[in-house]
């Protein structure tokens, strides 16, 4: 069963008066529970690909379907609601809110989902304990290491129990030990049945995926199993 589907997706945008082809008629189906790494040189369209799958960037042409819903047939408010229910983002730079503690950062998606303060507190604490930050609940991002910040981001991403996880270079700013720890978490959440798509430059990280999609100059040039 397909969780994600791209049909003839093209994305063009203007940059300093020139048209840039970020994606060029990309078609691909991704099954539920798959773990896909997206690789390719800088500027090949990897991040564009991921943001379009996340409903954050509309294609110039083509159709993107997630869990049977045509994402860009929804209006922006409906798309935000759909994202809240189904998609979790993980960023290279963590994107934690700097003035909130670890616990408060994890509470944000729970607040957006309309949970009560008590339920927010309970679930956020459970998630931070799960990622090994029981002792860092009330620390602000500036008081945490890079690896700890990415684990807070991981807990925040899991808060609304997303079916699809979109990770953009999640280990790009981390040391090898922390990278391993984050990849283990991604393996773990994939084993729980979530579909994981990870943009990466790191060959070791891409090997952890079940499947590799390679992009070059906006075109899909490889779509193979990782082991192959």
């Amino acid at each position, binding site marked *: 069963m397909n969780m994600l589907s791209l049909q003839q997706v093209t994305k063009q945008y203007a940059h300093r008066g020139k048209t840039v082809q970020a994606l060029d008629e990309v078609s691909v189906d991704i099954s539920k529970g798959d773990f896909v790494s997206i690789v390719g040189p800088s500027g090949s369209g990897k991040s*564009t690909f991921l943001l379009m799958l996340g409903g954050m960037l509309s294609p110039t042409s083509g159709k993107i379907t997630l869990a049977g819903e045509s994402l860009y047939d929804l209006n922006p*408010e409906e798309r935000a609601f759909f994202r809240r229910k189904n998609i979790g983002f993980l960023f290279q730079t963590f994107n934690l809110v700097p003035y909130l503690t670890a616990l408060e950062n994890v*509470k944000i998606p729970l607040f957006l989902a309309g949970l009560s303060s008590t339920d927010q507190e309970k679930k956020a604490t459970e998630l931070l304990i799960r990622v090994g930050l029981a002792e860092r609940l009330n620390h602000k991002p500036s008081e945490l290491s890079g690896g700890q910040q990415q684990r807070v981001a991981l807990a925040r991403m899991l808060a609304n129990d997303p079916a699809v996880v979109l990770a953009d270079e999640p280990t790009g700013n981390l040391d090898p030990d922390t990278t391993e720890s984050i990849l283990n978490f991604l393996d773990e959440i994939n084993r729980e049945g979530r579909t994981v798509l990870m943009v990466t430059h790191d060959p070791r990280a891409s090997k952890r995926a079940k499947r590799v999609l390679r992009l070059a100059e906006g075109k899909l040039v490889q779509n193979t199993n990782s082991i192959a």
Partner: protein
Amino acid sequence: MKLSSIVWLEIFERKNQVITSFLAILLGISVIVSIKNITYFSEKAVARELDALGANILILPKSASIQNYYNADMQGDVFPEEYVTRLSTSDLQGLDNLSPKLSLPIQLSGKNFILTGILPKNEFQAKAAWQGAGIFSRPQGCGTIVDLPGSEKPVAKETLVRKRVIDTLDESSALVGADMASLLSLKEGDTVKLLEKEFKIIGVLPVTGTIDDSRAFAHLHTVQKMAGKGPAVNAIEVVGCCEQISKGLVQKINSLLPEAKVVTITQIVDTQINTNHMMARLSLLFLAIIVLVGGASIANYMYANVYERRREIGTLMAMGAGSKIVLRLFLLKGLLLGLSGGVFGYVLGTILAVVLGPWVAGVPVLPMPSLILWAVGLAVFITLVASYFPARQASQLDPCTALQEI
């Protein structure tokens, strides 16, 4: 976690940035509150002083001249007492007291005096036609006569001198002016014969420095009988509320009594009008400054805040926050700034007014709780309007650009 928690935590995290905008609103509101507060009590003080001067509108026969305001009723011409009924039963606002008068020249011990007939207040209340709609059943003093702590209620004689009103006066009683009492060696309890009728003196009036010091006051109807002119008067003295005079009370009385001449002390009215206009212009000037400076400061701060937080906005959108939530996030911040600026601005402005009022305007100033609604309303209006466009810009941010991922 609530939207308000996010807003508060962000404000406290970046308090150094928000403090300038907060101060702009705080100081602006403080200045306006203190001006309004001082103005209010200053106007009341002016109105009280004007009121203390006594009658400020005279209704005279059409033919009368007004060389001297204080003896304008001494010209012999009369008009019907019925004019009093017309005024009493009219819906004119700002008529604080009416005092119909009929004056006759008299001689005692070779000296000239004036016998003036006046109508005591109980006569107004006794007339069925004047009840209910009557002048004394209306609120008096235009709300300007405030009994400040320590002030004393005037006694009957002072009320007659100042407001031309006395509560009761029977038909054979009289009050005499200070000069008349002095020249004729009269005192309270004596009897005096005026135009062949004996009157018991029930009081000697204090010195006024006007022709009233040479008058004897008796019941209007007694004086009318003595004059043999029927139910006529030759003047109606009116204590008009200065605020209403400035709004055209004299013209309205003229319309009601086209056969009479209505005059007022223009300098008094002009003083009140000029004071009111100056204060109103000053308030407007400061209002314009606060709206421009405060609004511009808040808008500038909000635009900078949106720019600084665009990655945070993009992250919130990635987590499923719609544009409405982002809009509310920034408008709520504007609302909190407005509420706090309004409340603290009211407190600071009131303290300034109470402390500086006596020094600046020479009047005691008391706190005005009603101004807090005005202060908070204005501050919230300014901050919400100033925050709206930055908030809308934030809500319409392209999340990809905001995340700087492309």
